[in-house]
Protein backbone atom coordinates (compact mmCIF):
# COMPACT_ATOMS: atom_id res chain seq x y z
CA UNK A 1 0.00 0.00 0.00
CA UNK A 2 3.07 2.21 0.37
CA UNK A 3 3.05 2.06 -3.41
CA UNK A 4 -0.01 4.31 -3.53
CA UNK A 5 0.87 8.02 -3.52
CA UNK A 6 -1.44 10.96 -2.85
CA UNK A 7 -2.97 12.11 -6.13
CA UNK A 8 -2.73 8.71 -7.82
CA UNK A 9 -5.42 7.32 -10.08
CA UNK A 10 -6.55 3.98 -8.71
CA UNK A 11 -8.48 1.35 -10.61
CA UNK A 12 -10.45 -0.99 -8.37
CA UNK A 13 -11.33 -4.49 -9.62
CA UNK A 14 -14.54 -6.43 -9.27
CA UNK A 15 -17.89 -4.73 -9.89
CA UNK A 16 -20.25 -3.01 -7.43
CA UNK A 17 -20.40 -5.41 -4.47
CA UNK A 18 -18.77 -8.32 -6.30
CA UNK A 19 -15.10 -9.22 -5.71
CA UNK A 20 -14.26 -5.75 -4.41
CA UNK A 21 -10.70 -5.71 -2.99
CA UNK A 22 -12.10 -4.58 0.38
CA UNK A 23 -8.99 -5.48 2.40
CA UNK A 24 -6.90 -3.26 0.10
CA UNK A 25 -9.47 -0.45 0.26
CA UNK A 26 -9.37 -0.70 4.07
CA UNK A 27 -5.57 -0.41 4.02
CA UNK A 28 -5.90 2.62 1.75
CA UNK A 29 -8.19 4.25 4.32
CA UNK A 30 -5.83 3.43 7.18
CA UNK A 31 -2.96 5.02 5.24
CA UNK A 32 -5.00 8.27 5.07
CA UNK A 33 -4.24 8.87 1.40
CA UNK A 34 -5.48 12.14 -0.16
CA UNK A 35 -6.38 13.57 -3.57
CA UNK A 36 -6.98 10.19 -5.18
CA UNK A 37 -8.98 9.54 -8.34
CA UNK A 38 -10.98 6.32 -8.12
CA UNK A 39 -11.82 4.55 -11.39
CA UNK A 40 -14.35 1.73 -11.15
CA UNK A 41 -17.12 0.57 -13.48
CA UNK A 42 -19.91 0.36 -10.90
CA UNK A 43 -19.10 2.00 -7.56
CA UNK A 44 -20.53 0.80 -4.24
CA UNK A 45 -19.82 1.26 -0.50
CA UNK A 46 -16.04 1.41 -1.07
CA UNK A 47 -16.63 4.62 -3.01
CA UNK A 48 -18.71 6.07 -0.17
CA UNK A 49 -15.94 5.19 2.32
CA UNK A 50 -13.28 6.95 0.24
CA UNK A 51 -15.53 10.00 -0.22
CA UNK A 52 -16.34 10.26 3.49
CA UNK A 53 -12.68 9.76 4.45
CA UNK A 54 -11.69 12.64 2.16
CA UNK A 55 -9.40 10.33 0.22
CA UNK A 56 -10.85 10.94 -3.25
CA UNK A 57 -11.41 14.13 -5.19
CA UNK A 58 -12.76 12.44 -8.32
CA UNK A 59 -14.61 9.22 -9.09
CA UNK A 60 -14.62 7.89 -12.65
CA UNK A 61 -17.53 5.47 -12.99
CA UNK A 62 -20.66 4.43 -14.90
CA UNK A 63 -22.92 4.18 -11.84
CA UNK A 64 -22.72 4.81 -8.12
CA UNK A 65 -25.01 3.60 -5.32
CA UNK A 66 -25.17 0.41 -3.26
CA UNK A 67 -28.00 -1.51 -4.91
CA UNK A 68 -31.62 -1.18 -5.98
CA UNK A 69 -33.25 -1.72 -2.54
CA UNK A 70 -31.40 1.27 -1.05
CA UNK A 71 -32.19 3.73 -3.83
CA UNK A 72 -29.84 6.56 -4.73
CA UNK A 73 -26.75 6.78 -2.51
CA UNK A 74 -27.22 9.57 0.03
CA UNK A 75 -23.46 9.73 0.52
CA UNK A 76 -22.78 10.08 -3.20
CA UNK A 77 -25.44 12.81 -3.43
CA UNK A 78 -24.01 14.63 -0.40
CA UNK A 79 -20.43 14.80 -1.70
CA UNK A 80 -21.23 15.28 -5.39
CA UNK A 81 -24.06 17.81 -5.08
CA UNK A 82 -21.92 19.86 -2.65
CA UNK A 83 -19.09 19.83 -5.20
CA UNK A 84 -16.68 18.15 -2.76
CA UNK A 85 -16.08 15.24 -5.12
CA UNK A 86 -16.33 15.25 -8.93
CA UNK A 87 -18.23 12.34 -10.45
CA UNK A 88 -17.02 11.70 -14.01
CA UNK A 89 -19.53 9.46 -15.77
CA UNK A 90 -18.84 7.04 -18.64
CA UNK A 91 -21.09 4.38 -20.10
CA UNK A 92 -20.33 0.93 -18.69
CA UNK A 93 -18.96 -0.36 -21.99
CA UNK A 94 -16.98 2.83 -22.59
CA UNK A 95 -15.25 2.48 -19.22
CA UNK A 96 -14.58 -1.17 -20.02
CA UNK A 97 -13.06 -0.12 -23.35
CA UNK A 98 -10.94 2.52 -21.61
CA UNK A 99 -9.33 -0.24 -19.54
CA UNK A 100 -9.10 -2.52 -22.59
CA UNK A 101 -7.41 0.16 -24.70
CA UNK A 102 -4.91 0.56 -21.87
CA UNK A 103 -4.46 -3.21 -21.73
CA UNK A 104 -3.86 -3.32 -25.49
CA UNK A 105 -1.35 -0.47 -25.32
CA UNK A 106 -3.27 1.77 -27.72
CA UNK A 107 -4.38 5.36 -26.97
CA UNK A 108 -8.03 4.76 -27.93
CA UNK A 109 -10.52 2.20 -29.18
CA UNK A 110 -13.30 2.90 -31.68
CA UNK A 111 -16.83 2.17 -30.44
CA UNK A 112 -20.49 2.63 -31.33
CA UNK A 113 -21.61 3.54 -27.82
CA UNK A 114 -22.27 6.93 -26.15
CA UNK A 115 -22.68 8.49 -29.62
CA UNK A 116 -25.28 11.26 -29.62
CA UNK A 117 -25.61 11.27 -25.84
CA UNK A 118 -24.49 13.97 -23.38
CA UNK A 119 -21.97 11.49 -21.92
CA UNK A 120 -19.62 12.29 -24.83
CA UNK A 121 -19.02 15.79 -23.45
CA UNK A 122 -18.60 14.75 -19.79
CA UNK A 123 -15.39 12.82 -20.41
CA UNK A 124 -14.36 14.85 -23.46
CA UNK A 125 -14.70 11.83 -25.74
CA UNK A 126 -13.86 12.68 -29.35
CA UNK A 127 -15.32 11.08 -32.47
CA UNK A 128 -13.20 9.61 -35.24
CA UNK A 129 -13.83 8.71 -38.88
CA UNK A 130 -13.21 5.14 -40.02
CA UNK A 131 -10.50 5.57 -42.69
CA UNK A 132 -12.15 2.90 -44.86
CA UNK A 133 -15.85 3.80 -44.79
CA UNK A 134 -15.87 7.32 -43.34
CA UNK A 135 -18.32 6.18 -40.66
CA UNK A 136 -18.30 8.17 -37.42
CA UNK A 137 -17.27 6.30 -34.26
CA UNK A 138 -16.59 7.25 -30.66
CA UNK A 139 -12.83 7.25 -29.97
CA UNK A 140 -12.86 5.97 -26.39
CA UNK A 141 -9.59 7.10 -24.74
CA UNK A 142 -7.35 4.61 -22.96
CA UNK A 143 -7.12 4.73 -19.18
CA UNK A 144 -3.73 3.85 -17.68
CA UNK A 145 -4.21 3.76 -13.88
CA UNK A 146 -1.23 4.39 -11.61
CA UNK A 147 -2.26 1.52 -9.36
CA UNK A 148 -4.70 -1.38 -9.72
CA UNK A 149 -6.26 -2.97 -6.62
CA UNK A 150 -7.58 -6.47 -7.30
CA UNK A 151 -8.97 -9.41 -5.34
CA UNK A 152 -8.87 -12.86 -6.96
CA UNK A 153 -9.73 -16.45 -6.04
CA UNK A 154 -6.28 -18.01 -6.41
CA UNK A 155 -2.70 -16.97 -7.15
CA UNK A 156 0.72 -18.62 -7.05
CA UNK A 157 3.99 -17.17 -5.78
CA UNK A 158 4.79 -15.81 -9.26
CA UNK A 159 1.57 -13.79 -9.21
CA UNK A 160 -0.29 -15.87 -11.78
CA UNK A 161 -3.96 -15.26 -10.93
CA UNK A 162 -7.09 -17.34 -11.43
CA UNK A 163 -10.66 -15.99 -11.12
CA UNK A 164 -13.83 -18.09 -10.93
CA UNK A 165 -17.19 -17.05 -12.36
CA UNK A 166 -17.45 -13.33 -13.09
CA UNK A 167 -14.28 -11.95 -14.67
CA UNK A 168 -15.50 -8.36 -14.48
CA UNK A 169 -12.72 -6.10 -15.84
CA UNK A 170 -9.83 -7.26 -13.67
CA UNK A 171 -7.62 -8.70 -16.41
CA UNK A 172 -7.79 -5.54 -18.54
CA UNK A 173 -7.18 -3.37 -15.46
CA UNK A 174 -4.09 -5.41 -14.56
CA UNK A 175 -2.57 -4.92 -18.03
CA UNK A 176 -3.48 -1.24 -18.17
CA UNK A 177 -2.10 -0.24 -14.76
CA UNK A 178 1.51 0.72 -13.98
CA UNK A 179 1.44 -1.03 -10.58
CA UNK A 180 -0.74 -4.03 -9.69
CA UNK A 181 -1.56 -5.01 -6.10
CA UNK A 182 -3.45 -8.28 -5.58
CA UNK A 183 -5.09 -10.06 -2.67
CA UNK A 184 -6.11 -13.69 -3.11
CA UNK A 185 -8.53 -15.96 -1.26
CA UNK A 186 -6.07 -18.81 -1.72
CA UNK A 187 -2.36 -19.19 -2.46
CA UNK A 188 -1.68 -22.17 -4.72
CA UNK A 189 1.57 -23.95 -5.59
CA UNK A 190 3.07 -23.24 -9.00
CA UNK A 191 2.29 -26.86 -9.93
CA UNK A 192 -1.43 -26.12 -9.56
CA UNK A 193 -1.15 -23.20 -12.00
CA UNK A 194 0.69 -25.36 -14.51
CA UNK A 195 -1.97 -28.07 -14.20
CA UNK A 196 -4.70 -25.67 -15.35
CA UNK A 197 -2.97 -22.97 -17.42
CA UNK A 198 -6.19 -22.09 -19.23
CA UNK A 199 -7.65 -20.92 -15.89
CA UNK A 200 -5.01 -18.20 -15.48
CA UNK A 201 -6.43 -14.76 -16.33
CA UNK A 202 -3.59 -12.50 -15.13
CA UNK A 203 0.04 -13.49 -15.82
CA UNK A 204 2.54 -13.15 -13.00
CA UNK A 205 4.70 -10.63 -14.83
CA UNK A 206 1.93 -8.04 -14.37
CA UNK A 207 1.71 -8.38 -10.59
CA UNK A 208 3.86 -6.23 -8.28
CA UNK A 209 2.59 -7.43 -4.90
CA UNK A 210 0.43 -10.31 -3.69
CA UNK A 211 -1.12 -10.95 -0.26
CA UNK A 212 -3.14 -13.92 0.96
CA UNK A 213 -6.45 -12.56 2.35
CA UNK A 214 -9.36 -14.99 2.86
CA UNK A 215 -12.76 -13.26 2.75
CA UNK A 216 -10.86 -10.31 1.25
CA UNK A 217 -14.04 -8.83 -0.30
CA UNK A 218 -16.36 -9.15 2.68
CA UNK A 219 -19.10 -7.88 3.14
CA UNK A 220 -19.08 -7.81 -0.68
CA UNK A 221 -19.34 -11.16 -2.50
CA UNK A 222 -16.73 -13.45 -3.98
CA UNK A 223 -18.17 -15.75 -6.65
CA UNK A 224 -18.75 -19.28 -5.40
CA UNK A 225 -17.20 -18.56 -1.98
CA UNK A 226 -19.51 -16.13 -0.16
CA UNK A 227 -22.54 -14.03 -1.03
CA UNK A 228 -22.69 -10.30 -0.18
CA UNK A 229 -23.99 -9.63 3.33
CA UNK A 230 -26.98 -7.41 2.53
CA UNK A 231 -27.83 -7.22 6.22
CA UNK A 232 -24.48 -5.50 6.74
CA UNK A 233 -25.44 -3.01 4.00
CA UNK A 234 -28.88 -2.51 5.62
CA UNK A 235 -27.34 -1.72 9.01
CA UNK A 236 -24.92 0.70 7.34
CA UNK A 237 -27.62 2.53 5.37
CA UNK A 238 -30.00 2.56 8.35
CA UNK A 239 -27.34 4.42 10.34
CA UNK A 240 -26.98 6.94 7.51
CA UNK A 241 -30.77 7.36 7.27
CA UNK A 242 -30.87 8.00 11.02
CA UNK A 243 -27.77 10.16 11.55
CA UNK A 244 -26.93 11.52 8.09
CA UNK A 245 -23.61 11.37 6.22
CA UNK A 246 -21.67 11.64 9.48
CA UNK A 247 -22.67 8.04 10.21
CA UNK A 248 -20.06 6.89 7.70
CA UNK A 249 -17.26 8.31 9.88
CA UNK A 250 -18.51 6.20 12.80
CA UNK A 251 -18.66 3.15 10.53
CA UNK A 252 -15.09 3.74 9.34
CA UNK A 253 -13.85 4.21 12.91
CA UNK A 254 -15.51 0.93 13.85
CA UNK A 255 -14.55 -1.17 10.81
CA UNK A 256 -11.55 0.47 9.14
CA UNK A 257 -9.50 2.22 11.82
CA UNK A 258 -10.20 0.37 15.09
CA UNK A 259 -9.59 -3.28 14.11
CA UNK A 260 -5.79 -3.65 13.84
CA UNK A 261 -5.91 -6.63 11.49
CA UNK A 262 -8.17 -8.05 8.78
CA UNK A 263 -8.86 -11.00 11.10
CA UNK A 264 -10.14 -8.55 13.74
CA UNK A 265 -12.26 -6.90 11.03
CA UNK A 266 -13.79 -10.24 10.08
CA UNK A 267 -14.53 -11.05 13.76
CA UNK A 268 -16.37 -7.73 13.92
CA UNK A 269 -18.36 -8.64 10.78
CA UNK A 270 -19.30 -11.83 12.59
CA UNK A 271 -18.14 -15.41 12.08
CA UNK A 272 -21.74 -16.61 11.89
CA UNK A 273 -22.41 -14.12 9.10
CA UNK A 274 -19.34 -15.30 7.17
CA UNK A 275 -20.45 -18.92 7.52
CA UNK A 276 -24.01 -18.09 6.44
CA UNK A 277 -22.87 -16.15 3.36
CA UNK A 278 -20.48 -18.96 2.41
CA UNK A 279 -23.33 -21.47 2.67
CA UNK A 280 -25.59 -19.29 0.47
CA UNK A 281 -22.86 -19.01 -2.16
CA UNK A 282 -22.55 -22.79 -2.33
CA UNK A 283 -26.33 -23.10 -2.72
CA UNK A 284 -26.28 -20.70 -5.68
CA UNK A 285 -23.24 -21.98 -7.56
CA UNK A 286 -22.62 -25.50 -6.20
Amino acid sequence: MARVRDGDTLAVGGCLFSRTPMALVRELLRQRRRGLTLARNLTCTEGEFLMAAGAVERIVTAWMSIGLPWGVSKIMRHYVESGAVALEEWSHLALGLRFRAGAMGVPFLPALTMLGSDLMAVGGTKTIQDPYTGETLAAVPALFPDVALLHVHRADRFGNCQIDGYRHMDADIASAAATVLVTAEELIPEEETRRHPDRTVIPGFLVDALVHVPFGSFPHECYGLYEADVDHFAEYTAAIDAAGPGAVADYLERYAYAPPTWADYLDLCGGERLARQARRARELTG
Partner: protein
Amino acid sequence: MSGPFNASELLAVIASRQLRDDTTVFAGVGVPLLAAALAKQRHAPRLTMVIEGGIIGPEIAPGRLPISTNEMRAGRRAQMLPGITDAFLFAQRGFVDVGFMGGAQIDRYGNINTTAIGDYWKPKVRLPGTGGANDIASLCREIIIVTAHEKRRFVPRVDFVTSPGWLGGAGARRAAGLLFGGVSRVVTTLGILGFEPESRRMRVEAVHPGVTVQTIRDNTGFELDAAPVVETTEPPAADELALLRALDPERRFLG
Protein backbone atom coordinates in the same frame (compact mmCIF):
# COMPACT_ATOMS: atom_id res chain seq x y z
CA MET B 1 -60.98 -13.70 -13.93
CA SER B 2 -57.55 -12.93 -12.50
CA GLY B 3 -58.51 -10.85 -9.53
CA PRO B 4 -56.79 -7.62 -8.44
CA PHE B 5 -53.22 -6.73 -9.25
CA ASN B 6 -51.05 -3.71 -8.51
CA ALA B 7 -49.30 -1.33 -10.92
CA SER B 8 -45.95 -3.14 -10.78
CA GLU B 9 -47.61 -6.45 -11.56
CA LEU B 10 -49.47 -4.91 -14.49
CA LEU B 11 -46.23 -3.36 -15.76
CA ALA B 12 -44.27 -6.61 -15.48
CA VAL B 13 -46.95 -8.70 -17.20
CA ILE B 14 -47.55 -6.32 -20.11
CA ALA B 15 -43.79 -5.91 -20.52
CA SER B 16 -43.22 -9.68 -20.57
CA ARG B 17 -45.64 -10.00 -23.49
CA GLN B 18 -43.36 -7.82 -25.60
CA LEU B 19 -40.69 -10.54 -25.67
CA ARG B 20 -40.74 -13.28 -28.32
CA ASP B 21 -39.25 -16.76 -28.15
CA ASP B 22 -35.85 -17.56 -29.75
CA THR B 23 -34.57 -14.03 -29.18
CA THR B 24 -31.94 -12.40 -26.99
CA VAL B 25 -32.82 -9.68 -24.49
CA PHE B 26 -30.50 -7.35 -22.57
CA ALA B 27 -32.43 -6.96 -19.31
CA GLY B 28 -31.79 -4.55 -16.46
CA VAL B 29 -32.48 -5.67 -12.90
CA GLY B 30 -35.84 -4.96 -11.28
CA VAL B 31 -39.09 -5.08 -13.27
CA PRO B 32 -37.36 -5.62 -16.66
CA LEU B 33 -35.58 -8.75 -15.38
CA LEU B 34 -38.78 -9.95 -13.68
CA ALA B 35 -40.68 -9.47 -16.94
CA ALA B 36 -38.02 -11.33 -18.93
CA ALA B 37 -38.00 -14.18 -16.40
CA LEU B 38 -41.80 -14.36 -16.64
CA ALA B 39 -41.69 -14.44 -20.46
CA LYS B 40 -39.10 -17.24 -20.35
CA GLN B 41 -41.25 -19.31 -18.00
CA ARG B 42 -44.50 -18.70 -19.83
CA HIS B 43 -44.21 -18.23 -23.60
CA ALA B 44 -40.52 -17.82 -24.52
CA PRO B 45 -38.62 -20.85 -23.15
CA ARG B 46 -35.70 -20.24 -25.53
CA LEU B 47 -35.40 -16.54 -24.69
CA THR B 48 -31.74 -15.85 -23.89
CA MET B 49 -31.18 -13.17 -21.26
CA VAL B 50 -28.02 -11.11 -21.40
CA ILE B 51 -27.21 -9.33 -18.14
CA GLU B 52 -24.80 -6.45 -17.66
CA GLY B 53 -22.57 -8.27 -15.17
CA GLY B 54 -21.22 -10.37 -18.02
CA ILE B 55 -23.89 -13.06 -17.96
CA ILE B 56 -25.56 -14.98 -20.80
CA GLY B 57 -28.53 -17.32 -20.50
CA PRO B 58 -29.15 -17.42 -16.74
CA GLU B 59 -32.22 -18.98 -15.11
CA ILE B 60 -33.34 -16.73 -12.28
CA ALA B 61 -34.44 -18.67 -9.19
CA PRO B 62 -37.89 -17.78 -7.81
CA GLY B 63 -37.37 -15.99 -4.51
CA ARG B 64 -33.70 -15.43 -5.28
CA LEU B 65 -33.99 -12.27 -7.39
CA PRO B 66 -30.75 -10.30 -7.79
CA ILE B 67 -30.61 -6.67 -6.65
CA SER B 68 -27.66 -5.94 -8.93
CA THR B 69 -26.58 -7.00 -12.42
CA ASN B 70 -23.42 -8.77 -11.31
CA GLU B 71 -23.97 -10.82 -8.17
CA MET B 72 -24.18 -14.62 -8.06
CA ARG B 73 -27.97 -14.58 -8.13
CA ALA B 74 -27.96 -12.78 -11.49
CA GLY B 75 -25.85 -15.51 -13.10
CA ARG B 76 -27.52 -18.56 -11.61
CA ARG B 77 -27.35 -21.50 -14.03
CA ALA B 78 -25.94 -19.21 -16.75
CA GLN B 79 -24.74 -20.66 -20.06
CA MET B 80 -21.76 -18.32 -20.35
CA LEU B 81 -19.94 -15.70 -18.25
CA PRO B 82 -17.96 -13.71 -20.84
CA GLY B 83 -17.15 -10.71 -18.66
CA ILE B 84 -18.81 -7.31 -18.70
CA THR B 85 -17.03 -5.65 -21.62
CA ASP B 86 -17.46 -8.68 -23.88
CA ALA B 87 -21.14 -9.04 -22.97
CA PHE B 88 -21.71 -5.49 -24.23
CA LEU B 89 -19.58 -6.18 -27.31
CA PHE B 90 -21.99 -8.95 -28.33
CA ALA B 91 -24.64 -6.21 -28.42
CA GLN B 92 -22.35 -3.84 -30.35
CA ARG B 93 -21.86 -6.62 -32.91
CA GLY B 94 -25.64 -6.78 -33.30
CA PHE B 95 -26.47 -10.03 -31.51
CA VAL B 96 -28.92 -8.63 -28.96
CA ASP B 97 -32.46 -8.28 -30.28
CA VAL B 98 -34.11 -6.33 -27.48
CA GLY B 99 -32.90 -3.93 -24.81
CA PHE B 100 -35.26 -3.89 -21.86
CA MET B 101 -34.79 -0.96 -19.49
CA GLY B 102 -36.38 1.47 -17.03
CA GLY B 103 -35.98 5.23 -16.91
CA ALA B 104 -36.05 8.04 -14.35
CA GLN B 105 -36.79 10.85 -16.80
CA ILE B 106 -37.93 10.37 -20.42
CA ASP B 107 -38.70 12.85 -23.19
CA ARG B 108 -40.94 12.87 -26.28
CA TYR B 109 -38.22 11.20 -28.41
CA GLY B 110 -37.63 8.42 -25.89
CA ASN B 111 -34.35 9.85 -24.64
CA ILE B 112 -33.66 8.88 -21.03
CA ASN B 113 -31.96 10.70 -18.18
CA THR B 114 -30.63 8.68 -15.24
CA THR B 115 -27.67 10.99 -14.59
CA ALA B 116 -28.68 14.28 -13.03
CA ILE B 117 -31.52 16.77 -12.51
CA GLY B 118 -30.18 20.23 -13.26
CA ASP B 119 -26.69 21.04 -14.53
CA TYR B 120 -24.33 18.07 -14.85
CA TRP B 121 -21.41 19.57 -12.88
CA LYS B 122 -23.68 21.38 -10.38
CA PRO B 123 -26.64 19.00 -10.13
CA LYS B 124 -29.77 19.73 -8.10
CA VAL B 125 -30.17 15.97 -7.76
CA ARG B 126 -27.39 13.55 -8.69
CA LEU B 127 -28.77 10.21 -9.87
CA PRO B 128 -26.71 6.98 -9.90
CA GLY B 129 -25.81 7.31 -13.59
CA THR B 130 -26.01 5.29 -16.75
CA GLY B 131 -24.49 2.01 -15.72
CA GLY B 132 -25.08 0.04 -18.92
CA ALA B 133 -28.25 1.89 -19.89
CA ASN B 134 -26.54 4.07 -22.50
CA ASP B 135 -24.89 1.00 -24.04
CA ILE B 136 -28.13 -0.98 -24.13
CA ALA B 137 -29.97 1.97 -25.71
CA SER B 138 -27.14 2.54 -28.20
CA LEU B 139 -26.43 -1.05 -29.23
CA CYS B 140 -29.50 -3.29 -29.06
CA ARG B 141 -31.57 -3.89 -32.21
CA GLU B 142 -34.70 -2.59 -30.49
CA ILE B 143 -35.31 -0.83 -27.17
CA ILE B 144 -38.34 -1.30 -24.96
CA ILE B 145 -38.65 1.03 -21.98
CA VAL B 146 -40.59 -0.08 -18.92
CA THR B 147 -41.60 2.64 -16.47
CA ALA B 148 -44.28 3.98 -14.14
CA HIS B 149 -46.32 6.66 -15.91
CA GLU B 150 -45.93 9.91 -13.95
CA LYS B 151 -46.05 13.48 -15.27
CA ARG B 152 -42.69 14.35 -13.60
CA ARG B 153 -41.02 11.50 -15.49
CA PHE B 154 -42.43 12.35 -18.94
CA VAL B 155 -40.80 15.71 -19.70
CA PRO B 156 -40.55 17.67 -22.99
CA ARG B 157 -36.75 17.67 -22.80
CA VAL B 158 -34.58 15.60 -20.45
CA ASP B 159 -32.00 17.62 -18.49
CA PHE B 160 -29.30 15.22 -19.69
CA VAL B 161 -29.38 12.59 -22.43
CA THR B 162 -27.94 9.57 -20.63
CA SER B 163 -29.42 6.99 -22.99
CA PRO B 164 -30.28 7.82 -26.60
CA GLY B 165 -33.84 7.25 -27.75
CA TRP B 166 -34.48 8.88 -31.13
CA LEU B 167 -32.34 11.87 -30.00
CA GLY B 168 -33.64 14.92 -31.96
CA GLY B 169 -36.01 12.87 -34.12
CA ALA B 170 -35.96 11.09 -37.50
CA GLY B 171 -32.43 10.32 -38.76
CA ALA B 172 -30.69 11.71 -35.68
CA ARG B 173 -29.38 8.34 -34.41
CA ARG B 174 -27.84 7.49 -37.78
CA ALA B 175 -26.33 10.97 -38.05
CA ALA B 176 -24.69 10.50 -34.66
CA GLY B 177 -23.10 7.25 -35.84
CA LEU B 178 -25.51 4.75 -34.30
CA LEU B 179 -26.01 1.97 -36.86
CA PHE B 180 -29.29 0.45 -35.69
CA GLY B 181 -31.73 0.32 -32.80
CA GLY B 182 -34.00 2.94 -31.34
CA VAL B 183 -36.95 2.86 -28.95
CA SER B 184 -39.91 0.90 -30.30
CA ARG B 185 -42.22 0.99 -27.28
CA VAL B 186 -42.59 2.51 -23.86
CA VAL B 187 -44.61 0.21 -21.61
CA THR B 188 -46.08 2.16 -18.69
CA THR B 189 -48.56 1.69 -15.88
CA LEU B 190 -51.20 3.39 -18.05
CA GLY B 191 -50.62 1.92 -21.49
CA ILE B 192 -48.18 1.37 -24.33
CA LEU B 193 -46.58 4.28 -26.16
CA GLY B 194 -44.88 4.12 -29.54
CA PHE B 195 -43.24 6.56 -31.90
CA GLU B 196 -44.71 8.09 -35.05
CA PRO B 197 -42.52 6.66 -37.88
CA GLU B 198 -41.88 10.01 -39.61
CA SER B 199 -41.23 12.39 -36.72
CA ARG B 200 -40.20 9.75 -34.14
CA ARG B 201 -42.41 11.57 -31.65
CA MET B 202 -44.00 9.60 -28.85
CA ARG B 203 -47.67 8.69 -29.27
CA VAL B 204 -50.25 6.53 -27.55
CA GLU B 205 -50.62 3.09 -29.14
CA ALA B 206 -52.52 1.20 -26.45
CA VAL B 207 -54.27 1.86 -23.17
CA HIS B 208 -54.73 -0.52 -20.27
CA PRO B 209 -58.33 -1.48 -19.40
CA GLY B 210 -60.16 1.45 -17.81
CA VAL B 211 -57.55 3.99 -18.94
CA THR B 212 -58.34 6.64 -21.56
CA VAL B 213 -56.00 8.43 -23.94
CA GLN B 214 -56.90 11.61 -22.06
CA THR B 215 -55.75 10.06 -18.77
CA ILE B 216 -52.40 9.31 -20.36
CA ARG B 217 -52.18 12.87 -21.74
CA ASP B 218 -52.99 14.25 -18.29
CA ASN B 219 -50.06 12.27 -16.86
CA THR B 220 -47.56 13.27 -19.55
CA GLY B 221 -45.49 16.47 -19.51
CA PHE B 222 -45.66 17.03 -23.25
CA GLU B 223 -48.18 17.00 -26.08
CA LEU B 224 -49.01 13.47 -27.11
CA ASP B 225 -50.68 12.26 -30.33
CA ALA B 226 -52.53 8.97 -30.57
CA ALA B 227 -51.97 6.22 -33.14
CA PRO B 228 -54.71 5.87 -35.83
CA VAL B 229 -55.91 2.82 -33.93
CA VAL B 230 -55.45 2.72 -30.17
CA GLU B 231 -55.67 -0.83 -28.83
CA THR B 232 -56.74 -1.81 -25.35
CA THR B 233 -54.37 -4.26 -23.65
CA GLU B 234 -55.51 -7.61 -22.29
CA PRO B 235 -55.47 -7.51 -18.49
CA PRO B 236 -52.97 -9.80 -16.73
CA ALA B 237 -54.19 -13.41 -16.83
CA ALA B 238 -54.32 -15.59 -13.73
CA ASP B 239 -51.40 -17.75 -14.86
CA GLU B 240 -49.28 -14.71 -15.63
CA LEU B 241 -49.87 -13.27 -12.17
CA ALA B 242 -49.28 -16.63 -10.49
CA LEU B 243 -45.93 -17.15 -12.20
CA LEU B 244 -44.91 -13.53 -11.58
CA ARG B 245 -45.78 -13.64 -7.86
CA ALA B 246 -43.90 -16.92 -7.48
CA LEU B 247 -40.79 -15.22 -8.89
CA ASP B 248 -40.91 -12.44 -6.28
CA PRO B 249 -42.55 -13.90 -3.16
CA GLU B 250 -40.77 -11.32 -0.99
CA ARG B 251 -42.39 -8.58 -3.10
CA ARG B 252 -38.94 -7.08 -3.57
CA PHE B 253 -39.85 -5.49 -6.90
CA LEU B 254 -43.60 -6.06 -7.08
CA GLY B 255 -44.21 -3.80 -4.08
